[in-house]
C-alpha cells in the first residue's frame, strides 16, 4: 500500500505547462528516485506535492486526501521535504532547526511554555542528528555551517518530524563523492527503517545505487518508470540525457 500516492498532477505557469499529468507512488520503506534533465520539473513536482505551488491533480498521504491543503497541514500529516538550497532557519541553532519540525506546539503546550513549564527534550531531535552524524553541530548557529553541513541539517530537519514520507530535493548537491556515498548509505538506512523517501538528485550513481524504483521526468512528463536497472537502459531516458549517464558515472556494476 502506497504511503504517498500522487495522481495526475499538473502545474502551469501562465500558459506554460511545467508539469503534465505526473503520477507516482511511494510505499513505506521504499526509496524512489526522481530524475530528469534540468528544467524537467522535478522541483516543481515536489512543490506541487507539498502544496507550495497550486496544482491540479490528487495527492494522497497514507490514504488521506491532501489535495488543496496548505503546506503546513501536509507537513503535519507526515509529508516532509528538504530544499535544493537547504533553506535552513538561519536565526536558529541546528538543534532548534530540528525542534521546529519535531515539536508541534499546540495552544495548550504553548500556554504551558509561557507559564515557564519546560517541555521535555524531544528524542526525535537527537535521533535525527545521530542518523546523519551531526551530534557535534547541535548547538552551532545555522548560518555558520558549510554548504555540505547545511544540506545534511536540512535532511535531519525533515527527519526530526518523524514523517511518513520525505521528499529530498537534491540533498547530495554540493557534497563530494565520499560524502555523497555516505549520505546514500544513511538514507538507505532511513528507508529501511520504514520511512518512504522520494529522492531527487543529479548524482546518477547515488540514485541508481540506492533507489528501489526510479521515475524519469522530461519537460514535465514521465518518460520512464521502473527499477533502476530497467530505467538505465530505457532508450527514451538515454535520449533525454544524451548519453549523460555514461559520463556522469554510471554505477560500476548493474
Amino acid at each position, binding site marked *: 500500500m502506497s504511503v504517498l500516492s500522487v495522481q495526475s498532477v499538473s502545474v502551469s505557469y501562465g500558459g506554460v505547462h511545467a508539469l503534465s499529468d505526473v503520477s507516482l507512488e511511494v510505499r513505506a520503506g521504499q526509496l524512489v528516485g526522481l530524475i530528469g534533465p534540468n528544467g524537467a520539473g522535478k522541483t516543481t513536482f515536489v512543490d506541487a506535492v507539498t502544496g507550495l505551488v497550486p496544482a491540479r491533480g490528487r495527492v494522497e498521504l497514507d490514504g488521506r486526501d491532501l489535495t488543496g491543503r496548505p*503546506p503546513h497541514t501536509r507537513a503535519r500529516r507526515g509529508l516532509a521535504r528538504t530544499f535544493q538550497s537547504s533553506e535552513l532557519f538561519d*536565526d536558529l541553532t541546528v538543534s532548534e532547526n530540528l*525542534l*521546529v519540525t519535531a515539536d508541534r*506546539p499546540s495552544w495548550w503546550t504553548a500556554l504551558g511554555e509561557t507559564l515557564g513549564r519546560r517541555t521535555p527534550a524531544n528524542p526525535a531531535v537527537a535521533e535525527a542528528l545521530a542518523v546523519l552524524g551531526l551530534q557535534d553541530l547541535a548547538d552551532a548557529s545555522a548560518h555558520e555551517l558549510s554548504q555540505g553541513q547545511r544540506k545534511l541539517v536540512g535532511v535531519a530537519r525533515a527527519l526530526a518530524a518523524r514523517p511518513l514520507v520525505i521528499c529530498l530535493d537534491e540533498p547530495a548537491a554540493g557534497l563530494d563523492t565520499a560524502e555523497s556515498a555516505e549520505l546514500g548509505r544513511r538514507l538507505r538506512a532511513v528507508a529501511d527503517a520504514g520511512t518512504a523517501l522520494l529522492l531527487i538528485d543529479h548524482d546518477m550513481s547515488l540514485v541508481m545505487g540506492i533507489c528501489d524504483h526510479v521515475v524519469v521526468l522530461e519537460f514535465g512528463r514521465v518518460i520512464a518508470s521502473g527499477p533502476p536497472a530497467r530505467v538505465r537502459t530505457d532508450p527514451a531516458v538515454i535520449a533525454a540525457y544524451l548519453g549523460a549517464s555514461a559520463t556522469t558515472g554510471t554505477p560500476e556494476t548493474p
Partner: protein
Amino acid sequence: MEQILLFAVLGLGQGALIAGIALGVVVTYRGSGIINLSTGAVAMASAYAFWSLTTGFFGFTLPVGPAAAGALVVALAVGVLTEVAVFRPLRTSSPLAKLAGSLGVLLTMQAGVLLIFGTQPQQAPSILPADTITFLGLTIPSDRFVLTGLVAAIALALGAVYRWSRFGLATRAASENEQAALLAGLSPNGVSLANTLLAALVAGLLGVLAAPIVQVDSITLPLQVVPALAAALFAGFTSLGVACTAGVLIGVSQSILYYLSTQSWFPTDNGNAMPGLQQLLVFALMVVALYVRGAGLPRRGEAVEQRLPAVPLPDRLLRPALVAAAVAVVALIVLPFDFRQALTNSMIGMVIVLSYVVITGYVGQISVMQLALSGTAGFVLSHLAVRWGVPFPFSALGAVLVATLLGVAAGVSALRVRGVSLAVVTLAAALAVEQALFNNTSFGGTAGVTVPPPTLFGIDLGPKADFRGLDGNEPSPLFGFLVLAVTVALGLYVAHLRRTGLGRQMLAVRSNERAAAAAGIDVRAVKITAFAISSFIASAAGTLYGYNFGSVSAARFTALAALGLIGFAYIGGITRVSGALAAGLMSTGALLPHALEKWFGIKGTWALLFGGVSLVVTLIANPDGIAGAAHRRKTAKKAKSPEVFRGFTPVEVKEVTS
C-alpha cells in the same frame, strides 16, 4: 457639479506635489532598491533653503532665480550626503535596514531644520504666476496647470532618460539584476548615486515650487512621502508614468473628498468636518494598490545575503530581571521625584519597544501601527473608566483587549503584506488612525481625555497615591512599582518567548516563510499570534501611559513618534529585551534625556538629531544595536577566558607552586 470640477482642478496642485515626490521615490528605488522615506524631507530642506535665501534669514537676500538655484544645490548636497554616508554603506543590508536608514535620514533632517530654522511654519514666495483664469465661470489659479504640466514634463523627461541613455540602461540592468549588472562591469554605486541625485533634484524642485500649495515646516513636506508611497505602490516602484498619474489623481481625489466633506449631508464630528479623511483615503488607496499589484515589490538580484540582526538564546533570565527590579524598587523610593518620574517614563518606553522586539525582532515585520494601538488602548481605557465606570483592573484589561483585537484585525488583513510593504502600509494606517480616530473628538481628542488613577481594593496605585518617595513628592513609588511589575513581567515573557516552541516558529518564519510552511508551521497563525502578542504589549504600554499622566492625548501617539520609537528600538537592539531596555532609557522623558537636560542643559531637538544620526550609525556599524554589541563583548570575553568566575583559583595555585 461645477464645484466638483473646481475642486478637482484645485487638487491638481497637491496632486502635482505628491506626483513629484512619488517620482523621487521611484527613481531612488530603481537606482538602489531603497524605499526612501526621506524623499519628502529633501523637498523640505530645499523649501527651507529657498525660503531662507529669499527672506534674508541668513542676513542677505537673493533674487528668486539664484535662490531657487541655491535651493536645488542644497537638495543635491543632501542627496550626495545621504548616498555616500547612508545608502552606500547600507547597499548590502536587508531592505528593512535600508528603510530604517532612510528613516534615520528623515529624523536627522527634521532635527536639522528645527535647530536651524525653529519650529515656526514659514511661507516661501511663489515663483509661479499668481494670476487666475476663468474657466466655465470658475476662478482658478493658473499655477495649478503650470505645476501639473511641469511634473508631467519631468516624468516624461525621466522616462526618456531611462529609455534611451546609457545611464538609463545601466539603471534598468541594475534594478533587474544587480549581480548581473555587477558582472557586466556596471558600478552599482555609480548608478545608485546618479539616481539618488536625480531624485533629490526632482524633490528639491518640488520643494521650491510647492510654495503656493503648502507651508514650509518640518512635518508637512516630509509626510507627503506617504501619499507618494501610495502612488509608487500603484506604479510597482517602477513605472514613472503610473507614479506620476496616480500621484496627481490622489491629489485630485483628496480635493474632491474635501469638498464633499464640507457639504451639509456629510457626517460630521460634533459639527466639524470629519478629521483624517485624506489620510484614510491614502491608506485605502494603498490597500487597493497592494491588492491590484500584489503584495511583493520587484526584487533585485541582490548580490549579498541579507539577514536581520541575530536573536541569541538568552541564557539566564530570572536573575538579571530580579536584580534590575530590585535596583528599580530602591531607585523608585530614594531618587528625587523628577528622576523617579523619568524612570517610570523609561519603563513605559521599554514596554512599547518590547512590542517591536516581538513583531520586528522575532518575526521580521515592521509595523508602524503599534504606537497607534497604544493610543487606542489609552483612549478606550478612558472611555471605559470614565463613561462606563469600569473599575481597575478590568478597565485596563478591557482596553488592552479592544486594542489587541484591533491589532489582530490589522494583522489578519495584512497577512499577504510583508517586510517593507508592510512598513509602508502600516505607516499610512498609523497616520490614518492618528488623524481620523485620535483627532476625532467623539473618540480621542488632542485636549486629552481623563484617566482616573488605578485603585485596587481601595488602594490608590496611581502616581498621586499617598505613599510618596523619600522626598515626599509625586509621583508615588506605588505607581512606579505597578509599572515595574508590568515591565518585568512583559520583559521576562518576551525573553522567555525566544526559548519556547512558539518563539522558534517565529524565528523560522522570519528566516524563511516557505521553508517554515514546509516544516509544518502555520505561517499565518504564527504571524497573527505575533501580532496579537505585540499588540497586547503595545496596548499595555498605552494604558500605563494613560495612568502615568492621568490623561491620554493624541500628540503622544503620532505616526512620526512611532517612527522615532522604531529608531530607538533599532539603536537599542531590536531583537533583544536588553535592547528594549536600552531604547526605553533613551525614549522621550526617560532617564537619559532627563539627565542630559538636567545636568548638561541638552534639550529635546538635539536628542532628535542625536537619535537620527545614531540610528544611521547603528545600522551601518552595529546592526545588532547597543544590546547586540554588549552581547558580543560578553561572548568574546567568555570565549577568551572560560573560567572568568573562578579567576582566583589559578592564581592561588600558582603561588603555591612557585
